[in-house]
């Protein structure tokens, strides 16, 4: 059993900061896109080495998007 964890912080202006743990490769971005909607206004993305390891159990991505 593997745990998938997403931590999302919304600041008082609506800016979002999100990070994932335990979601493989590109799936973590897909998951965030589904939860947060459009990621077109993405301001920053940081991919860890794990992100590129498709079979790795843990991948961590941090994204921060701009408020509309």
């Amino acid at each position, binding site marked *: *059993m*593997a*745990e*998938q*964890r*997403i*931590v*999302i*912080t*919304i*600041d*008082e*202006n*609506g800016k*979002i900061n999100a990070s994932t743990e335990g979601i493989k490769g590109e799936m973590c971005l897909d*998951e965030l896109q*589904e*939860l*947060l*909607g459009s990621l077109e206004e993405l301001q920053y993305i940081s991919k860890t080495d794990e992100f590129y390891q498709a079979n790795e159990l843990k991948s961590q991505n941090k994204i921060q998007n701009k*408020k*509309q």
Partner: protein
Amino acid sequence: MSAVVKTITPFINKEFLLQALDAIGCKYTLQGNEIITERVDYYGNQKFVLINGRFQFQHDSSANREQYPWRNLNVKEYKTVSSFLVAVESKYHYFYNLKMEELEKQRQEEERIRLENERKAFVEKQKESIIAKAKEKGYSVKEENVKGKVKLVLVRNTY
């Protein structure tokens, strides 16, 4: 022959006019649409009467003379009708401007509150949308408030 005529500002607002009279120390009584002052000339109390949307000052036309025999003059420094009306006008402007400033501050405050509410509503909607989608996808959702920020911790177990 030519002439130059200058009028004072029409007193159209009763509230400002009363405030102006108070400010210069002119006592008065109210009677319907009349503001009756304690300045008494030959014909009786001088008064402001609402006519055609403005308070017109009714008085003995001779009361513009410095040596006019007043029956009662409650504000001694304004011995002529003109000087009295100029003083009232000055205070009338003062209270009018004060009210305008107050309304402007009030308008700005209302606008600030409206924008603040708009922002809060947006953030709330954003949060609710994420929570709903997360639950649909099988995540358990824990919500915290950290230093004014909303923190959502979504956890899901996969096999």
